[in-house]
């Protein structure tokens, strides 16, 4: 069923469901969603798992519930959510369609997401007493920073009625850090045009956590052995996997675009070093 429906429609549907405009915001605030969807977005329906995790670290409490929910999602499908549900991944996929020529990221860049998870999302928040990863997160800039600032600007200049509630005084609070964060988003957008899913591959802490479950999750690619090895076509792998043994590794987002294809090749002739 999943493979029959084009992935882009899954992604678009879930981006809308995670930010559903016809329900009160944060109707499902109790549920950390298995994707990077900022809960400061005026339309967000669920909680951001990384933001929630950091909040518990800031208040010096062990987040049993959040860890349990993330682990349950991970045990079911690993990084499948990155490819089919994550709105920010969808945004990067759309940007990736702008040009065909892509630059290849070095393989060690895949470990950057663990650095991001450990340093920015786990170690620094209890030290600086704020969700430090959120202060840099480009998904937060895109889904919350820009819409909220734009709404405040519209209210000021056009006396428009408040659409989503709140937001007074936001414009006065905008400082250099806001523009720094917008700069990170701009850099990510530029990178997403010339390489595939740069944020997911190098910096996403949620992808880092879910990647740990990739091999043991219920949803895996068909097992390979000497006699019945499936042939993967890795030519268009969105995360740059080039070897069949690395399918379902921590970098694999289980998009299944390689699945069922006859051609097995590591040829990525369209990518430049």
């Amino acid at each position, binding site marked *: 069923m999943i493979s029959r429906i084009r992935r882009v429609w899954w992604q678009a549907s879930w981006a809308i469901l995670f930010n559903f405009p016809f329900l009160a915001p944060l109707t499902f605030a109790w549920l950390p969603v298995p994707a990077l969807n900022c809960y400061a977005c005026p339309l967000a329906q669920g909680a951001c798992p990384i933001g929630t995790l950091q909040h518990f670290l800031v208040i010096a409490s062990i987040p049993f519930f959040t860890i349990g929910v993330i682990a349950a999602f991970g045990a079911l499908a690993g990084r499948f959510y990155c490819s089919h549900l994550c709105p920010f991944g969808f945004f990067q996929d759309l940007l990736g369609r702008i040009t065909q020529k892509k630059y290849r990221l070095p393989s060690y860049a895949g470990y950057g997401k663990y650095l991001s998870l450990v340093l920015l999302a786990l170690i620094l928040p209890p030290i600086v007493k704020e969700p430090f990863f*959120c*202060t840099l997160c480009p998904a937060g800039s895109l889904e919350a920073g820009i819409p909220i600032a734009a709404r405040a600007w519209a209210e000021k200049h056009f006396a428009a009625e408040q659409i989503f509630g709140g937001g007074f005084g936001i414009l006065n609070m905008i400082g250099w850090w806001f523009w720094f964060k917008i700069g990170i988003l701009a850099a990510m957008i530029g990178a997403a045009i010339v390489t595939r899913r740069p944020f997911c591959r190098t910096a996403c802490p949620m992808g880092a956590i879910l990647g740990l479950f990739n091999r043991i999750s*219920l949803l895996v690619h068909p097992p390979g052995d000497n006699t019945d090895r499936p042939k993967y076509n890795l030519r268009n792998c969105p995360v740059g996997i080039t070897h069949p043994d690395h399918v379902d590794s921590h970098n694999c987002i289980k998009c299944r675009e390689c699945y069922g294809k006859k051609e097995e090749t590591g040829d990525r002739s369209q990518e430049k070093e």
Partner: protein
Amino acid sequence: MKKRRRWVIAGFTLFITSVLLVGVGIGRNEVNVVVSNAKILCYSCIGLK
């Protein structure tokens, strides 16, 4: 195939453990903390300091 079965057992065990963790979290009333944190506007997410 045997190797795969080991992974399945590990995954199933992990899933059961995660459900138990969720239960512990609910018992500790963490859901309310998650909800209240989500409903407070996250200024860090917006980029305001």
